[in-house]
């Protein structure tokens, strides 16, 4: 039994304490936008925000998450897909297969929240998610676009 603060709601889940947060989100709560890619915190497809910090949920046991930590998944990033990163992703036609993109977007959103004007070097060091289709150039361009727009400084 655990209580989670997820996408602004308090949710009770009945689950073994060793279960990674990823699988609680996907299988208990039923939100499948957060993806399984590796299970060892390598690829970043499972990235969610915990108190605003991009966190790989596949290797984080639910027992290590407390009720006062605010978890946000891709489904909760904005009510209508209007987060500046989501808008930039659409504008730049970033996704190819799309499987890694929830994680990419969540990582980018956290990066821009913490650092609204990242340099290319900042982006290279923070965006360590794996994309096999090869969207990296568009990911970088979209993040730089959000930074240049100043959208993360507003509201």
């Amino acid at each position, binding site marked *: 039994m655990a209580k989670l603060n997820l*996408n*602004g*709601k308090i949710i009770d889940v009945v689950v*073994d304490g*060793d*279960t990674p947060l990823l*699988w609680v989100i*996907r*299988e208990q709560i*039923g*939100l*499948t*936008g*957060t*993806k*399984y*890619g*590796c*299970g*060892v915190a*390598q*690829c970043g*497809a499972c990235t969610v925000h915990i108190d605003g910090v991009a966190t790989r949920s596949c290797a984080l046991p639910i027992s290590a998450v407390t009720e006062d930590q605010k978890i*946000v*998944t*891709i*489904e*909760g*990033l904005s*009510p209508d*897909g209007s987060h500046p990163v*989501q808008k930039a*992703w*659409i504008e730049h*036609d*970033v*996704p*190819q*297969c*799309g*499987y890694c*993109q*929830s994680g990419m*977007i969540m990582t980018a959103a956290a990066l821009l929240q913490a650092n609204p004007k990242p340099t290319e070097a900042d*982006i*290279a*060091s923070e*965006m*360590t*998610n*794996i*994309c*096999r*289709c*090869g*969207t*990296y*150039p*568009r990911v*970088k361009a979209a993040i730089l676009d959000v930074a240049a727009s100043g959208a993360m400084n507003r509201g």
Partner: protein
Amino acid sequence: MTSATLTKPSRRAVLAGSAAAAGAFTFGFSIPFADEASAQGAGSVKEINAWVVVKPDDTVVIRIARSEMGQGTLTGLAQLVAEELNADWSKVTTEYPTPGENIVRKRVWGNFSTGGSRGIRESHEYVRKGGAAARTMLIQAAAAQWNVPAAECAAEKSVISHKSSGRSIRYGQVAEAASKLEAPKDVALKDPKDWTIAGKPLKRLDTVAKTNGSKVYGADLKMPGMLNAAIKDCPVFGGKVKSFEAAKVSSMPGVKHVLPVGETAVAVVAETWWQAKTALDALPIVWDEGEHAKVSSESLAEWLKEGLDAPQAVVGNQVGDVKGAIANAARVVEAVYAYPFQNHATMEPMNATALWTPERCEVWTPTQNGEAALAATAEASGLPLAKCEAYKIDLGGGFGRRGAVHDWVTQVVRIAKQVPGTPIKLLWSREEDMTHGRYHPLTQCKLTGALDKDGNLTGLHMRISGQSIVAGIFPQNIQNGRDPVVFQGLNAPGPEASIGYGIPNLLIDHAMRNPHVPPGFWRGVNLNQNTIYLECFMDELAHAAGKDPLEFRRALMKNHPKHLAVLNAAAEKAEWGKPLPAGVFRGICQTMGFGSYVAAVAEVSVSDDGKLKIHRIVAATDPGHAVNPAQIERQVEGSFVYGLSAALHGECTVKDGRIVEENFDTYTVMRLDEMPKVETVIVPSGGFWGGVGEPTIAVAAPAVFNAIFAATGKRVRTVPLAKTDLRKA
């Protein structure tokens, strides 16, 4: 902040799917969940023809037979149909017919296979004709309604008009009438220079759902009453399960079944996948590892090395007398290259969901070939093909892994058959995916080049030793010991995968050596290693001849104008020959495959401590016709990520008969920090249709390896680069 609602397949939708596939063809149904770009519920709306449905509200539903795995085929094919249809692009959506429907309708949608960069290049003509025929019928229906000759009417952006009377009518208003008309016997296609939708850099149709978590992949599928399965196949290929102790895990949380899967695998079925995986990890399994349990990368390398000089080899391309040319050469250059096993490593691991009953078997799966998935379903189910159906789900990466072989489909059906009436979703762990792939083939190549006293190439012998993909997957296609695909990019002049050089004495032959590790079609296929072998060696020959690598190539390309034009396009854009910043060096290469001509120039530097930095890539592509330049750019960029991941890092090593690398911590792939700037030059010369998803992969490694030689004087002859020490001596 609100939590988004997840789309769940309803029982009704699942049942509707069953009805649809049973033969009563209703096109509203494709897969039992909503998707941004996949129209749901065309309902009772009649199709104009197999490719086009127009709804009363003018929504145009274009049927797509090929699979979308990120490469943009869905959008490109829709553009081609919409172009000929003169449709309003803003009202275009798409849907997938099912493989079962294709069979019922005598394969009206043609081939579903989506590999070999064939999605557009092999279906452009009939899909365009489908669009043109539908336009003709819509115009005819309007003309009949107005009682005027159809020739006096024209259609633009889904509106038909009759100029002299000033009347106009929307497609949606005449769609039903049009659907009752006989299809025209012949239709003329537009000249590509008149295109307004095709040929344009339009945005993809399927992006929004990939930015908000609503896109449902196979791994995300949910059905009422569904159980989840995790699987372990024998770690040594060719081995079997000897025994397993189900009782040790059957009381673990959520566990429902512990099942054998064929002779080689064991699955745990549980309420959740995490429970299934946890129990499977705790399950004691004894394997009969079989005859290959001692094989290692080293033993395989020795075996292939022996093939480099073996007397028996199959000839792929032969001109003149290469032995004589080598015997009479002023200088002979020789080198041996090697390419390892590599995993496709799609981001979404293999998965499928199956529902088996004694009367029917259905599978939902990400697949590059819906018809092959259906065939695998039928075979494993023990039911006739007509009682089976496979539903395609957009793929979280394909790269060739999800096309020719559907081993995971066979597995899920074997599991579901043991739990009749219960939908079973099988998801491979990353570890299972890494160690049970269909790997990039293992080959070596010995190249011997003959130069005359002026440094001209007079003869070349390429001896390839190693694995045949075709022998591993379609052994019936091996004729007289010859695998035709193994010579990709090295073939005699012709429209497919031909060598770009006129070498007076040439011999390219193959000594087949097939390891027990199963090979697969891996994005770029044999063009990848063959281009490394040939293009890095051309660089070696140019260096030995004391010539500029570009000029050395050009001298051999007089009778290969398309190869030459694309090489020149890359060289010009990269300003080959102009000085670079201190410490930065260039490499160049070209190849031809999947119907397209490609070339690349890489600019790199190597630090004293051996660290490579790729500063810039210029890549040129001539695909004949460019259906969507924006998506071609993305395929070219992505090809460098995939190709350079392979070149710099990619290797699956074999120890004790099994694959050693189990996850991304040991199987390294390129991340954003290594990504160079890629400048794409598209030079469509017209007159042919080439693919764009794969050819550029092949030029990634040789361009960079040749640049590394320019920078360091060190040849990279073994993939991956990580095996070569680039530190300054």
